[in-house]
């Protein structure tokens, strides 16, 4: 197989496996584990086969285009560094897959766990194999997401949910920064390809964008690798099942941050800022992590803080800007992965077998599970840096670097001391772990009686411990070449000379090691007992700094702050919203006008003044202002006055040469008034007598003043603009063309109507659609309308009429009404055919003279409405069967078909046909397809407006029925 294919296979297989795992039935533990094992082992084989190529120095590369527009390819790139990380990911992955099979409870939905695990393997491989910056970010975020799912696997558990959320929040935030950083890096380097970026180191460091890029990339790396102060997510991620902790939170995911720093070390490192940020973060993390680990009572907690501490150590190494330190960092990464994973698994076994992880309860497990205890002790010794184990080697390298690193900074000077101190802490908690758990008298009162786990569960630990020992004993034979390959991939020309030997003679690092070992043991002797009794309050000196608590407080504060801000920056109330809209319009118009130096009062054209017109507008203005004043308490008056204002504006249209508008406006006015009145019946009466709190009175007055100012400004603004435009000469626009071409080209004399049904018929089609939609919406709403209880009663007038009728002899309830309506009924009934005639007239003449389908439709509606008003809904509907919805549909269809008819003639939609047809006797008769279109309009208008009116009118019937129902219910209750 071609090497590229092997690479692709290794990269893709985990995702395929993940997809396959989720398809397995919920109880298929063996199948799922087998699948995971197969995937990881196959991947490992693939990567293993590629070792010669990867070690050769020329990376194996496979690329496909993804986003060519952005210059982004998907590139798989295997070099020495990627190889060693891939082996870690796949190798430990295989062991964890095996371990998890026996660790997890039968009741757990195992395939889901394996699905996530395999997806994680894939994502992690994606990171280490990325040959493209953006691709790296993609897989980076994928690991965050999958780790979220893994931590939250036991989602019924509150701490799992919280831990998952915290981990995702922190690592994804870092990832988002990393994305921007990667974009900037790519921008500086001129390419997102890793090779190009790695080659562009000097350019990058010189660039003015280096600072932001560095900070952003490090934000990603430091959050992921749980560096101070972002470390807080890691201990809480321990709510995940132990195999997950072993894998993600010690061996792999946290190492993604380390990997990133190693990967970009040649590009980003070597500067002061790198040194300070990375070095300080690493140092602080190492110290705080190890210090905190000392005080943990939970095995996994101890291991988590220990992990933090070791990650800090590696970060510190990378921060030192020394090539040898990079080698040490890579080496320690591998070592830490092996011993920490095995320790986690051991902890898992202890938990599994005893039912607790609390070191204060555990004791003397050596007796119950000697084999596991031995393994754990070896791993812990490796962690503590005991000679002949792998931890010792890399720690020696670290201490050597600490000593070698020279400079005047306090960090440099303090480094050897702090490094020794941290090592001593490490010894202390390792010792505590071993001592508390395995030694002492056998524990009693444990949830389960401890014994050795099943054979298969120990194999992964055995394998890992074997690696620890092997590396510790014969480093050059085991890790040597791979480490060199990895280091060369990073350092290239700057590859330092180093020696992985166990013995380097008596030197400073050895002294520091010894000191740390001795110090750790001494400290344990002195403080061990006191640590045990340390109440659950965190480490000494730091118990007030509970990261989780702070984080939760932060989150809560954030949400609270957001809610506060949401309420301040926005509003759900309508009035302020409308106020803002009007203010914004005023501001926008003013700004635009001022920006261009609008001269509002430039002299211009004027039409001869007519005092009658002015007087008429005095009426209009008075009506409008009166309506505004009376709308609150005297709604009927306000409706009347709005009607007056409407009449004046329709007369204005007429005066100013727009008879069509006048006709339409009058008709609309009539129907609107009727509708407002129909609605008014269902509104509560308002009166000045309603008490308003005094405090509210002041605020209301202030609001009214503001509103008044806004209203005046809006009126003045609109008036000014209107005046400015009207007095300016007409622009040479499209308008004149219609006057000249309406008759010759469209065969209509009423230019406005021709515009509506021919030139701009498309507008009209939309317009009637609106009308139809509104009709239907009104109908739908009113179907479910329930009158408010206080307006349910019959109006007082009718009740009084009926009371009068009852009290007079010979009269039945309803007589008064019938008498009063005697004349209106007769008049409106006989008017009915004449209004139909009027509608026909308006419809037929529309094309040539004022009128048209809309006016005709409204006139017809008025004809119906008059019948409803005179006779009542029930009476009319006994006689006239109006099906408004069908009319709406019909109108739409007729209008559309009138438009689509032109397709048959090979013309665009709505192309009008117009001709004079000759008939005997009648002579030439104009025939226009526009008339059919207008017919559609008329039919729809009748349907929609009748639907609205009828729906409104029906509320009274409904009220009657509701009232009847109520009365019946009450009656039946009384009987019962």
């Amino acid at each position: 197989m071609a090497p590229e294919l092997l690479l692709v296979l290794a990269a893709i297989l985990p995702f395929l496996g993940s997809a396959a795992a989720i398809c397995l039935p919920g109880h298929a533990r063996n199948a799922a584990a087998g699948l995971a094992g197969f995937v990881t082992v196959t991947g490992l084989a693939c990567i293993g086969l590629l070792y010669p190529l990867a070690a050769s120095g020329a990376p194996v590369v496979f690329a496909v285009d993804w986003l060519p527009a952005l210059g982004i390819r998907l590139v798989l790139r295997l070099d020495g560094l990627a190889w060693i990380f891939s082996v870690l990911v796949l190798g430990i992955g295989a062991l964890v897959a095996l371990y998890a099979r026996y660790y997890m409870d039968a009741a757990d939905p195992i395939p889901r766990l394996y699905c996530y695990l395999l997806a994680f393997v894939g994502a992690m491989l994606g990171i280490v194999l990325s040959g493209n910056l953006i691709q790296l970010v993609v897989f980076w975020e994928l690991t965050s997401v999958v780790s979220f799912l893994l931590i939250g696997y036991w989602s019924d558990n509150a701490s799992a949910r919280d831990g998952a959320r915290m981990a995702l929040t922190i690592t994804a935030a870092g990832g988002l920064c990393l994305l921007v950083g990667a974009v900037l890096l790519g921008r500086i380097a001129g390419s997102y390809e890793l090779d190009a970026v790695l080659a562009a180191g000097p350019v990058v460091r010189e660039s003015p964008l280096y600072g932001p890029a560095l900070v952003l990339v490090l934000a990603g790396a430091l959050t992921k690798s749980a560096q101070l102060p972002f470390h807080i997510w890691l201990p809480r991620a321990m709510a995940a099942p132990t195999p997950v902790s072993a894998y993600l939170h010690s061996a792999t995911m946290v190492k993604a941050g380390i990997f990133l720093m190693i990967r970009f070390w040649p590009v980003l490192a070597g500067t002061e800022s790198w040194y300070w940020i990375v070095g300080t973060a690493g140092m602080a993390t190492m110290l705080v992590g190890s210090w905190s680990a000392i005080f943990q009572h939970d095995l996994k907690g101890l291991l988590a803080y220990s992990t933090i501490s070791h990650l800090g150590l590696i970060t510190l190494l990378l921060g030192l800007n020394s090539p040898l330190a990079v080698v040490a960092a890579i080496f320690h990464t591998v070592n830490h992965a092996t011993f920490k994973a095995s320790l986690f698994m051991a902890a898992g076994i202890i938990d599994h077998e005893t039912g607790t992880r609390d070191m204060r309860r555990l004791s003397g497990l050596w007796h119950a599970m000697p084999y596991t205890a031995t393994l754990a002790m070896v791993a812990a010794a490796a962690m503590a840096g005991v000679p002949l184990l792998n931890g010792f080697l890399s720690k020696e390298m670290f201490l050597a670097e600490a000593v070698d690193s020279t400079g005047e900074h306090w960090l440099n000077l303090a480094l050897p001391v702090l490094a020794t101190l941290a090592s001593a802490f490490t010894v202390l908690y390792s010792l505590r772990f071993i001592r508390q758990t395995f030694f002492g008298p056998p524990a009693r009162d444990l949830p389960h009686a401890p014994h050795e786990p099943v054979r298969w569960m120990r194999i992964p630990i055995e394998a890992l411990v074997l690696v620890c020992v092997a590396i510790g004993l014969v480093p050059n034979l085991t890790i040597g070449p791979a480490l060199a390959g990895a280091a060369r991939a990073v350092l290239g020309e700057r590859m330092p000379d180093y020696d992985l030997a166990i013995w380097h003679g008596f030197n400073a690092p050895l002294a520091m090691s010894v000191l740390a070992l001795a110090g750790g043991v001494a400290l344990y002797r002195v403080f061990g007992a006191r640590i045990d009794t340390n109440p659950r309050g965190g480490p000494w000196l730091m118990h007030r700094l509970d990261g989780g608590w702070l984080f939760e407080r932060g989150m809560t504060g954030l949400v609270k702050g957001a809610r506060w801000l949401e309420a301040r920056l926005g509003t759900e109330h309508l009035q302020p919203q409308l106020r803002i809209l009007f203010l914004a319009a005023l501001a926008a118009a003013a700004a635009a006008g001022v920006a261009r130096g609008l001269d509002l009062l430039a002299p211009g054209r004027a039409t001869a003044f007519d005092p009658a017109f002015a007087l008429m507008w005095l009426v209009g203005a008075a009506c409008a202002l009166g309506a505004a004043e009376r709308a609150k308490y005297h709604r009927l008056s306000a409706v009347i006055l709005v009607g007056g204002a409407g009449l004046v504006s329709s007369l204005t249209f007429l005066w100013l040469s727009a008879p069509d508008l006048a006709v339409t406006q009058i008709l609309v006015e009539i129907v609107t008034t009727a509708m407002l009145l129909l609605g008014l019946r269902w509104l509560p009466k308002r009166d000045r007598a309603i008490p308003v709190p005094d405090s509210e009175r002041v605020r209301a007055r202030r609001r009214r003043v503001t509103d008044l100012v806004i209203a005046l400004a809006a009126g003045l603004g609109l008036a000014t603009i209107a005046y400015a435009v009207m007095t300016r000469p007409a622009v040479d626009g499209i308008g004149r063309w219609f006057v000249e071409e309406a008759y010759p080209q469209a065969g209509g004399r009423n230019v406005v109507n021709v515009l509506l049904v021919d030139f701009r018929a498309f507008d009209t089609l939309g317009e009637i659609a609106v009308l139809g939609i509104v009709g239907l919406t009104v109908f739908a709403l009113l179907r479910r309308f329930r009158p408010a209880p206080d307006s349910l009663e019959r109006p007082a007038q009718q009740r009084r009429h009926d009371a009068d009728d009852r009290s007079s002899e010979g009269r039945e309830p309803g007589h008064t009404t019938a008498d009063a309506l005697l004349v209106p009924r007769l008049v409106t009934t006989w008017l009915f055919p004449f209004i139909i005639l009027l509608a026909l007239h308006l419809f037929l003449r529309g094309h040539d003279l004022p009128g048209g389908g809309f006016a005709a439709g409204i006139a017809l509606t008025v004809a119906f409405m008059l019948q409803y008003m005179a006779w009542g809904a029930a009476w009319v509907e006994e006689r006239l069967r109006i099906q408004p919805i069908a009319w709406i549909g019909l109108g739409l269809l007729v209008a559309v078909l009138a438009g689509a008819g032109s397709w048959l003639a090979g013309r665009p939609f709505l192309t009008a046909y117009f001709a004079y047809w000759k008939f005997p006797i009648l002579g030439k008769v104009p025939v226009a397809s526009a008339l059919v279109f207008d017919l559609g309009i008329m039919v729809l208008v009748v349907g929609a407006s009748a639907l609205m009116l009828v729906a409104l009118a029906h509320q009274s019937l409904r009220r009657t029925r509701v009232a009847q129902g109520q009365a019946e219910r009450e009656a039946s209750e009384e009987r019962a």
Partner: protein
Amino acid sequence: MTPPMTPPALPPSVAWSDHLVVLPIVLPIAVAGAMFLLDDRRRRLKEALSLATLLALVGIALVLVGRTSAAPEVYRVGNWAAPYGIVLVADRLSAMMLALAGLLGLCALVFSFARWGRAGPRFHGLFLLLLMGVNGAFLTGDLFNLFVFFEVMLAASYGLVLHGSGETRIRAGLGYIAVNLVASLFFLIGVSLVYGTMGTLNMADLARRLAAPGAGELALFEVGCAILGLAFLIKCSAWPLGFWLPTTYAAASAPAAAILAILSKVGVYVVLRLSLLLFGAGLSAGFGQGAILVAGLATIAFGTVGILASRDLTRAAGYAVMISSGTVLAVLGTGSEAALAGALYYLVGSTLAAGALFLLAEILQRGRDPVEAAQPVFADEYRDPFDDADATEVGRAIPAGVAILGVGLLLCTLVLAGVPPLPGFVGKLAIFIGLTAGTVTAAGWCLIACLTLSSLFTLMPMVRLGILNLWVPNDDPPPVLRLSELTALSGLLAACAALALWGGPALAYADATMQWLKAPEAYIAAVLDGGAR
């Protein structure tokens, strides 16, 4: 400048295939009209009709996407040439938006088959008319015709927001309608002012007139444009004009909310179209760009605050819609061409995800939500106001429903928060790369910071709400996912995934669209001189 008194010679006849451009408008209105003639009880037939229509619309849109890649298509409604008649212009941008609207509409429709289609009378007709309005707004080349289609779309949206009735909906609907009515009045003022000062309504003609020195009353024209722009920004729900959006969308029934996700994008589309067409060059070059930038940034910020503050998923989805609109606006405001292509791509992805989120949220919150589907209604004769016929619930409960919902929610979250590998990420990436392509301006940095923070602050509340809805154990019965709902959801999410997977071609399309928009001369020529077809 004197416009020609006679329009350019018209082709003697039009090929059948040319009518494709007008079909996205004519088809829904015709089918809706026919449906109104049918009794509302014939649900199956109506569903089939709507489904067929929507499929046809998606098909047409895709064909148009293909055809307009070469050249735009101009359709002269009524056979009147621009600038006198109304023309429809299908270009890359409109075709893309048509496809988006169609896809979203299709999925929302399929979703409604499960139950929402019966929660009120005449759902399907309203739904189709809404799409007609949206499609019309995308296609028209005439400013006033745009107003008309806006109104069609809004009127139908009022109906759909109120669909299912109930207190929350009606209360939200009242505010929604009031605000949008004011916006419509602004639109009218603006468009008439533009006409009064420039003498034309055709967008291309307007652009051409603006290119000639001394055209019209420029100051008053710009006042008109400012008011017009405000109307559009209200539809985009830009801060501080868009407070109606989250409340309204949260109250709306799920399929309505999903399709409404496209509504605010119509506003964005118009701002995009007009500012690039009219203000790219010419007398008013650069008009309003700063305002758009500020509005966009403020919208992202407010949307982010809102999403952080959200107590439920529907509200969060509403704010996500705001953020997505704000992002496109802000990118437009920076004037960065390269980023604009990314923004176009982002617009599509985020709209699909927001739509999916509305659907998901409804399923997840079903039963807990006070805003519930009312009893189904069939008898819609006005004389039977109390006839609430009940029907058995259809659809097959899917066993792994919760898991699927979880995956869906996760994917939506990823898209909206811009987390890899979905289109939200690709879009933001493209925007970042575009913004950093040249010298990074202060506006660019600001936008990058804004988008990054907004990503994070979208992710956090979404995760919180997801955990609350899916992980926290409760006594509610697990949500039941019906087949049609699953189909709708997977359709939207698959579209998202496809958008990311074929990010190359998609971004290339967006890039070409941006190039096309940046050089409007070809558009103008095609409309006014019959340059194309």
